Every structure is written in structure tokens, then in C-alpha cells.
């Protein structure tokens, strides 16, 4: 049962990521795209955890931690650029 659930959940996340991709490509505004990218990152975390569960390994854990911890850096710098143009003032 759990495996089926895992597969379904993976499917849900995959679908979610495709929707993010749609927004990323569609825009229309720049923050939209940044947001979509950010969400892609967030969903990736779940994806990694799920794949880990599915494969019974913890090898993806570090990647998940790093994305969770630093995944927003891209969003921050991009937003900062939109706001100020100069990201390091």
C-alpha cells in the first residue's frame, strides 16, 4: 500500500512541478517566473524525500537539506535585483 501511495504522491508532485514549469515559461511577469522557480525548488525537496523513501536510501537527504536551507537564495538575489538592480550594495 505504502508504495502505491508513494507513487501517487510522486505523481502529484510531478504534476505540481509541471504546473510550475508552465508558469515559469508562461510568465507573464518576472516575479511570476521567479516564484515558479522557487516553487520548483520547494517541490523538489519533497520529490527527493519521496524518491529516498521509495528507494529506501538516505542518500538524497543532504541535497534536500541544502535546497531547503539555500534554495531561496536564488529567489532572494533575483528579487533583490528586481527591486534595486544592484544586488550587493
Amino acid at each position, binding site marked *: 500500500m505504502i508504495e502505491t501511495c508513494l507513487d501517487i504522491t510522486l505523481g502529484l508532485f*510531478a504534476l505540481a512541478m509541471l504546473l510550475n514549469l508552465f508558469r515559469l515559461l508562461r510568465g507573464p511577469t518576472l516575479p511570476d517566473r521567479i516564484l515558479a522557480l522557487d516553487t*520548483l525548488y520547494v517541490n523538489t525537496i519533497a520529490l527527493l524525500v519521496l524518491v529516498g523513501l521509495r528507494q529506501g536510501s538516505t542518500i538524497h537527504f543532504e541535497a534536500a*537539506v541544502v535546497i531547503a536551507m*539555500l534554495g531561496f537564495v536564488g529567489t532572494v*538575489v533575483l528579487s533583490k535585483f528586481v527591486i*534595486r*538592480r*544592484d*544586488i550587493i550594495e
Partner: protein
Amino acid sequence: MLEALLAIPFVLALAIGLLPRERRRTAAWLAGLAPVAGLVLLALLTPPVLSGEGVRSLTEWVPTLGLAVSLRLDGLAWMFAGLVLAIGGLIVLYARYYLSEEDSMPRFFCFLLLFMGSMLGLVVAGNLILMAVFWELTSVSSFLLIGFWNHRSDAREGARMALAITGTGGLALLGGVVLLGRIAGSYELDVVLAAGPQILASPWYPAALGLVLLAVFTKSAQFPFQFWLPHAMAAPTPVSAYLHSATMVKAGVFLLARLHPALAGSDLFFYVVSGIGAVTLLVGSWHAIFQHDIKGLLAYSTISHLGLITLLFGLSTPMAVVAGLFHIINHATFKASLFMAAGIIDHETGTRDMRRLGGLFKLMPYTGALAIIASLAMAGVPLLNGFLSKEMFFTEALEVEGHQFMRWGVAAAAVLAGAFGVAYSLRFVDDTFFGPGPLRIETTPHEPPRWMRIPVEVLVVVCLAVGIVPALTIAPVLHAAATGVLGDDVPAYSLAIWHGLNVPLMMSLFGLAAGIALYFGIKRLIDLYGISYDSLGRRVFEWKTDRAIAWAGRLTATLENGSLQRYLGLMVLAALVMGATPFLAASLSPGGSQPMPPLGWLVWAVGVAATLATVALHRHRLLALVVMGAVGLAVSLAFLLLSAPDLALTQLLVEMVTIALMLLALNYLPEESPVERSRLRRWRDAAIALAAGGGTAALVHAAITRPLDTVATEMLALSLPEGGGTNVVNVILVDIRGFDTLGEITVFGVAGLIVHALLRHVRLRPERVVDGTPDPLLIPNLVARLLLPLALAVSLYLFLRGHNLPGGGFIAGLVLAVPMLLQYVLSGTDYVEQRLGFDYPRVIGLGLAAALLTGLGSWLLGYPYMTSHTDYVAVPLLGKLPLASAMAFDTGVYLVVAAGTLLMLGMMGSVRAPGARRGG
């Protein structure tokens, strides 16, 4: 002794070259020492030469090439060496008084001795390659001599022309002698000269002959290369006297004589050499009549006499060779004296233009007399040496064997040239010493200084002596030289003034009469002074060089148009060609595929879609950058799914820093790319891109569906027992292939330093400035600062366990750098660097030091560099802790990566706009 003979001029040239400009007398004395000492040495060497055995010496230089400093003094070389030294000595004496105060005497004599040495080397060389060496040296040193008065444009041009023509010949000679050496099996002259029949029979003979003759004809100013010689008259007169009488131009005919045994004997040789010689003889002597410059007249006369000598060698009969050698000597003596006389006239009157000269005999009778005698020798008047060799020439001209046309042609040419020779000699004498004039001369010409006249006197005396008593004076010399060329085939000949009333004498007399008639006829019938010849050869040469240079310039500019697009496009195309060529001949069956894991398609879709979007959006840079973030994510995910967690982590982190860097750069770049005007180019590039992409994909597919037998199997097996780590990737990075990593962190550190070097103190105008003070961004700031210590913990964790699980120095370094980047972004450079200021370049240095020194540690234990050592240290309470040298190495990586990244970001962030104050 032979070496000493050769070395003297060079050593003295060097010594003189180092003298200061004011030491004129010293320079002259030293310069005079060279020919004198040389002649003494030569005299000491004479007995063996005259006895026919010659002198040889050999010093190895480049034995693998068969190139040796092999010297060889036989009769021919001896005669030429004597000429070079004797006339050289007279020239030095003459030049001592000729050169004015403005001319740097040390420089002049340095060049002159260089030239003398080169000529000597050429004649005594016993190795073909060595001969080519000295041949080129004569070209170069004559270039310097002709261009001695380099403030004058005619001197510069003349020098360059001479160098271009004779230098070309020299390279041809090199080719020719290499061919000869190949045929004969050695470059040693003795071997080559003995291999005559072999050479004639070789299929390479025409090529070798052609190359050698090219050298001969260019050097000896034979038609159609004769035009450089008159332009070389821009040289100081001593130079002309030396180069165009005894040495430079004689080098060509010397070579002809030298290689005569090896090359002569074929119809090709006969027709080409004698034909060219005859044409040159006529062309030169005809042009000489119409020159107005004394030196120009003498130059063309030189050309014609060299044509005569060439013709004689072309005829190839032993007697002709003897006649050629004889004429070489005779021409050297009378022509050198004439040039010197011309120099005296120039010196005294300030002009060499015969249209302004005249009547000088009254003013300087002594010089006049000498010049007149020399011109008569040139004209071939009996009792002078010119007559004797001319007579021999006529004799030979009548005995030409071969084609009918050739026989009559040569005879006719001989008579005609004789007449022309008389005509221009007359013109010289008449226009210079007699008749009205001199005109428009500022000073009153008078006899030159005593010492300046002596060389002329000496030479004229020689002319007379040889002309009157040849058997007592020149016969042994000639005989020795002829033996050097012909060996035992020296014919019996007699050097007498009177051979009876024979056809050659008739020809001589007819020529004399015709020449006199011709001169006065021309003078009466046409306005001789009105004719002005522009040298066609020179015009063609200049036109050609100018055209060639312009064309080369255009071609270069067309190829190298400064367009990076073209350069990169060509590289891609080259790669396409090289990648595709092997498949033209072969086809490859695809191997089996594995099934796609379900998530694979997701990653594929994200990656492909985002890539295409990046390309589609590339003009809107910021958008493209965001979309490209998804490409990076897809790549990382692909790594993760395909069992490469380290790679995924690295890619993710690098992605973040890259985006930050690109944004930092984008601040100083336009937001959008303009549309490129050329639609064609875009389509073309798209086609190239598709081909590249398709090709790569096909090749990748072909490669990865094939089985692989890799060394990695062993690495997996050895990682834990030998490398002490379970994360094989990390073991490879810090141990098995740790040397790569050492290089890699060097690259990284240097990149940081470059950014530092390029942005320090630089002011750049941002593309657009947002007004107002920056928002403090309080909320993100607090979070980021809270995150920092936690991130540090994660970073350390990833670092410490990298050897066994995903992580390691590089990843950890970035995990340290990225949260720091956040601090920079949210708090600004000044804030961060005031509180956490590191001297990043120094930290990079320390990191490199850690990596380097760790590796060096194994030297102490007697192992190769970077051999890893692991030890367990017992610590109370904690038990045994591993202490691996690989870990220390990784510390270096960690430091360099963190410091390098922060240095880049910090520098990029601290660029100021022009006019802005720091901290503003």
C-alpha cells in the same frame, strides 16, 4: 690556420662594432689589420695550394644534419680569397679617406669586415650548407652596407631590394644544396664535386640546378634580376667598389665555378646558363651607354661583364672556364679602380651626373689618367688586361658547339657587346674628363688626398702589368684557380698578347671601331642627355611588392575581421567536420537502452522546455536567467536520479552562486540584447546549432549504449581499503586523482584573484540606478543572520563526512559561501566586510598551502607526492579518531573555494559608479 683566416674579419668586426663612434682612427686601423693579416695567412697557405693538394680543416657543428664547419682552400678558393682580401685592403684604405665626419666609421668598418668575412667564408667553405650559410651572410651584410646611408630613401630601398632579391636566391640555394646533398649523400664539397655523373643522372637534377642557378643569377645580377644592382649604387662608393667588382656579385659566378664539376655537362646547363649570360651581357652593356650617373654606368657595365662570365661558364668548355676565371680577376681590378675613381670625382665635385661633369682632366689630370687607363681596360683595348680575357672569350664564342642559332647568337652577342662596351667606356671618359664642364659645381675640384689615390694606382698598375706581361704576373694564379675548378682537365693555353692575326683579333678590332662609331653616332644623332631611363625591373618589383603587401593586408583583414562570432563559429564547424568525418565511412548500430524511470520524463520535460525557453528568451536577459535556473535544477535532478548525489549538490550550489554573479554583472550590462540585423546569420547559426546538438546527441547515444570496461572497477574496490573512504567520488577527488583537485583549486583561486585584479579600484557605470536609499530589508536580514550559524554547522558537517558520504571540501566551501553571499546581498558589502573582513587572497594562499603541504608530507615517509596516510589517534573519552591526510588536503579545498567565491562576490559587489563615494 684556415680557421684563423676566416675568424679574423669577424673578430675584428665585433671589436670595431663595440667601439664608440668617435674612435674613427682605431676603427680604420683595426679594419686595415684584417685584410693585411688575412693576406699574410693566405700567403703562408699558398705553397700547398699551388702544389695542388689544397688545405682542409673540419670542425663538427651539427653532425646529425651533416653540417660541419668544413673549410677547404683549393686554387679557386685561394684566388678568390686573394681577391677578396687584396681589394678589401685597398677599399679600407680608400674608405678611410672617403667617409665624412657624419658617417660612423666604426659602424661602416664593422659591416665591411662582416661582409669580407662572409665572402671569405663563402669561398673557403668546404661544405655545401656552410656555403649557403655564408652566402646568406653576404646578403645580410651587403644589406647593411648598401643601406649605410639610411637617412636616404634610395639607400633604404636599394638595400631592401638587394636583400629581397639576393635573400630569395639564398633560400633557393639552400634548397638546391640540400637536394644536391641528398643526391650525393653528403654535403661535403669533395664528395659532391666527385658525384657529378650521379647528379646529372638524378631525376632531381633539374630542380637542383634550377634552385642553384636562381641563387647564381640573383646574386650576380643576371637577367631578369639585374635591376637590383644599379639601385645598390646608393651605397657609399667604397661599398660599391667592393661589392660590385670583386665580391658580392662575384659570389654568383664563384658558385657557378665552384659547382661547375657537379652541375655542368648537361644541355640544360649549357643553354640556360649561356643563354642568360648572353642576354645579360647585351642588356647590361646596352643600358650602360645611356646612364648619366657614373656609378649607374659602371653598374650596368658590371652587369654586362658578369653576363660575360656567366656565358663563359655556360659554355662549359675547359678553355671557357679558364677565360671566365681570368675575366673575374680582370674585371675585379679595373672595375674596382673605376668605382674608386668615380668616388673621387663625386667627392671632389659633389656630383656623379655626367651631364654636369666634363673637362675634369684639366683639373685632376692624375686621377683622370688613371681612370682613363682603367676604362680602356674595361673596353678591352690591347695592352690592358681586359683585352686578354676578351680575346679568350671571342675565341670561345667562335667554338661554341650546339644549336646553330646558339653558335651564331653567341658570336654575334660577343661582337655587339664588345662594341657596346667600347661605347660606354668612351662615354665615361668623354663626358667626364673632356668636353665642356664641369657645370654648376660649387667647389673647385682638385686631386684627392695622396692616400685616397693609392688604391686606384695600385689597381691600374695591376691592369697594366697583367695586360702587358700576363705570363709573369697572372699565369700561376690563373692556373691554380683553373685547377681548382677543372682538376686535371686544365687545358693548355697561352697568355700572350699576340696570337697572330686571327678571327678573335679581327672581332676585337671590329668591336673597337664599331664602338667608337656607335658612341659618336649616338651622340650626334640623338640627344643622349635627354634620355632618361627608369628601370623597368625596379618598377615591376616595387609594384609587385606593394601589390602583394596590399593584397596580403586585405586578405588578413578579411580573414581576421575581429569577429568573435566568426571565430567561435569556425571552431564549432571544425568540430562538426572532425566529428562527422569518421562516420562517412562507417555506420554504427545503436545498442540497447534501459527503460526510463517514471520521474525521468519529468526531469527531461523540465530540462528541455527550460532550455528551449532560455534560448527563446535570451534577448530578455533577466528572464532567460530565471528560466535557466530551471535548467540547472533539471540537471541537478538528473544527477540525483542517476546516482550522483555529490554532483547534484555541487551543481545546485554552483547554480546559486552563478546566478548571483550573473545578476551582479547584469547591473553593468544592457537589460536586453538588440535584435541582430541579419536574419540569414540567425538561420545559419540555428542550422549549425542543430547540427552540433544532433551530432552530440547521436554520439552520446552511440557511446552510452555500448558496454564499458573501465578502470573505475578497481577504484571501487580499492576505495575503502586503500583510500580509507566509502564515498568513492570523494576518495577519487582527494586521493586517487587528488592532483586534479590541486589544479582545480588553483584555477578557482586564480579566478578569484583575476576578479580581484580586474575590479579593484575600478569604477563602472551601472546600466540603471534605482533611486532612493536601499531598503534595509529587515525581515530577510534577520532570518539570514539566524540562518548563518546553522548553515555553518551544515557546512562543517558536509565537510567532515565528505570522505564517506556525499559532501567534501568543495561542497562544504560553497555551503559556507552561499549564506555569506546572502549576508552580502541583504546587508551590503561594507557591513559584512567591516565585521567579517578577511583578506581573501591570503586565505586562498593559505588554502593552497594546506593542500600543497599535505601532499608534501608523504615525501618525509619516502612516498610519492600526495600519498595519503590515515592514522587513528586515541583520544580519551572519545575513542579512536581517524586522522587522514586526505582530510587536511580537503581543508585546503574548503578554504580556497570559500575564499575564492567570497572574493568574487565581494569584488563584484563593491564596484562603485564613477563619482560615487565608497559606502554611498
